[in-house]
């Protein structure tokens, strides 16, 4: 294990999770998160402070460009989130950029996610009388079509109700929908590239189907298969997620002193802790 120092001799799962999300960002990418996405939000600032200093970070719901917030608050449009930004986009300016293909990456989650990375944030159960009315999709049903790459994430994989055979409602576009794939639909965006869950890290194969690539050290392939509602592709070389570096952990702790990232996890997940000797 490389890069671990005093600071990082031990860490919690929520810290490692946002580090894994951060690593899906490449330097010089234009990156956006939606509202209500503390893990993605923290991850973007971690990436900008570590391996992606030249990314263009668009703070979701504030549309502030490259801010240095003093802390991440529990709501996505507090003024603290534009501190240090020389410029904030107008609402339409961001969404236009996303629709014309000028945004390279967006973080996206869902109450349900199918094998192709279609997501449901609208309603679980029949649309006319839903079992659970979820909050809604924000701008996703348009911009998921055109943004360069999507990093999906969920902290509820283990429930068995999140990675499903078929979404009750498709709010945001994955690789293939019942109406056809992205080429048929005329969509210029590349679709889901990564999915990070509390069980593992996944990419998508050439058919656009989710594929297990890395496991957290306390998770087995069988754990993942049991929690996944469709026949998952497993890569030949499933590895373990690289531990966080001290630089990454320091960034997480500095960016998110209030720990808003933790609000995404079941309490049991927050008890998962790790150390260099683990």
């Amino acid at each position, binding site marked *: 294990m490389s890069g671990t120092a005093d600071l990082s001799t031990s860490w919690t799962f929520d810290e490692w999770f946002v580090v894994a999300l951060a690593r899906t960002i490449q330097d010089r990418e234009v990156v956006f998160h939606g509202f209500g996405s503390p893990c993605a939000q923290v991850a973007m600032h971690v990436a900008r402070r570590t391996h992606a200093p030249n990314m263009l970070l668009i703070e979701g719901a504030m549309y502030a460009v490259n801010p240095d917030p003093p802390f991440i608050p529990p709501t996505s449009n*507090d003024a603290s989130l534009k501190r240090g930004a020389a410029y904030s986009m107008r609402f339409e300016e961001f969404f236009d950029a996303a629709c014309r293909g000028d945004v390279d990456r967006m973080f996206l989650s869902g109450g349900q996610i199918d094998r192709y990375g279609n997501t449901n944030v609208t309603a679980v159960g029949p649309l006319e009388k839903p079992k659970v009315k979820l909050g809604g999709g924000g701008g996703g049903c348009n911009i998921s079509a055109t943004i360069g790459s999507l990093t999906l994430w969920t902290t509820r994989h283990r429930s068995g109700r999140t990675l499903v055979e078929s979404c009750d409602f498709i709010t945001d576009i994955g690789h293939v929908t019942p109406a056809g794939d992205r080429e048929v639909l005329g969509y210029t965006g590349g679709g889901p590239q990564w999915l990070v869950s509390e069980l593992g890290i996944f990419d998508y194969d050439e058919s656009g189907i989710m594929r297990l690539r890395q496991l957290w050290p306390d998770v087995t392939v069988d754990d993942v298969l049991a929690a996944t509602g469709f026949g998952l592709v497993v890569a030949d070389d499933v590895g373990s997620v690289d531990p966080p570096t001290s630089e990454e952990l320091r960034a997480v702790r500095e960016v998110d002193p209030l720990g808003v990232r933790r609000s995404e996890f079941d309490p049991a997940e927050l008890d998962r802790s790790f150390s260099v000797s683990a």
Partner: protein
Amino acid sequence: MFVDSDKRMSLADAAALVHDGDVVALGGGLSARLPMALVRELVRQGRRDLHVVGSAHSIDVDMLIGAGAVSVCEESYVGFEQDLGLAPAYRRAAEEGTIRVKESCCVTILTQLRAASMGVPFLPVRGIKGTDVPRLHSEYAEMTCPFTGDVLVVVPPLRPDVALLHAPMGDARGNLVMEQPYVLDEHFAQASRSVIATVDRLVDTDDVAGFGVTIPGHFVRAIVEVPFGAHPASSYPGYAYDRRHMDTYVKAARTPEGMGGYLQEWVLSGDESEYRVRVGEESLDRLTSWTESDDAWKELFA
């Protein structure tokens, strides 16, 4: 357009310009710059059958639904993010079928407002195809691009009867000064038949001009000074959002009884000056303390 030079009126008179059945655009977003004083006054006046439209909202839409004022909800999101979770009254009404959910998308609503602003009867969007969103919107159509052959979803104009906006500052003519993000407020102003605005503080025209006018008075039909008129949402640079009050609301709203109790205690029992008394000077002062230091700011959310 509204050319009068003095559009000040009482909150009750302003809210009375909203009629049962109106398509109502709610300004601001999530926990910021929500027109809460107007929302509360609409509840007091017992407005019914509103068709609310907007992007990502929270307590404003949820409270109107909980008060039985809404028949159609056409927002891109209603909720309290990861922090306080799903919107209780919205969720209940949607699951029980007591409102019609026409969930939309930020881009789609923006595009429909643009169609109204631009005076054209349709506009195309890039996405939507392949999703289930059209199941909620029989008004959408598809067209083939004459230049590329692409098939795109096209949407009709959205022209709200009235937009309810809150700004930290404005003048008697209705010029409004806001901080970013303006969210859809400018588009609401241009696309709606009229704007009713509340401001935390009424100032002179020279002052609004000095700060820079965000929404010009010629879109505004009525303006009302209501200190803390966005509470419990934020209205920077004045005050942060009141997370404790939001939490109180969300917990109460989880049952019809709790919802009724909240409305009785906070809304129906008095007017806005009584509301501020009930919230308490100490709580309100605390929300303005964000300017003191980063730590003071952070403490508001701890």
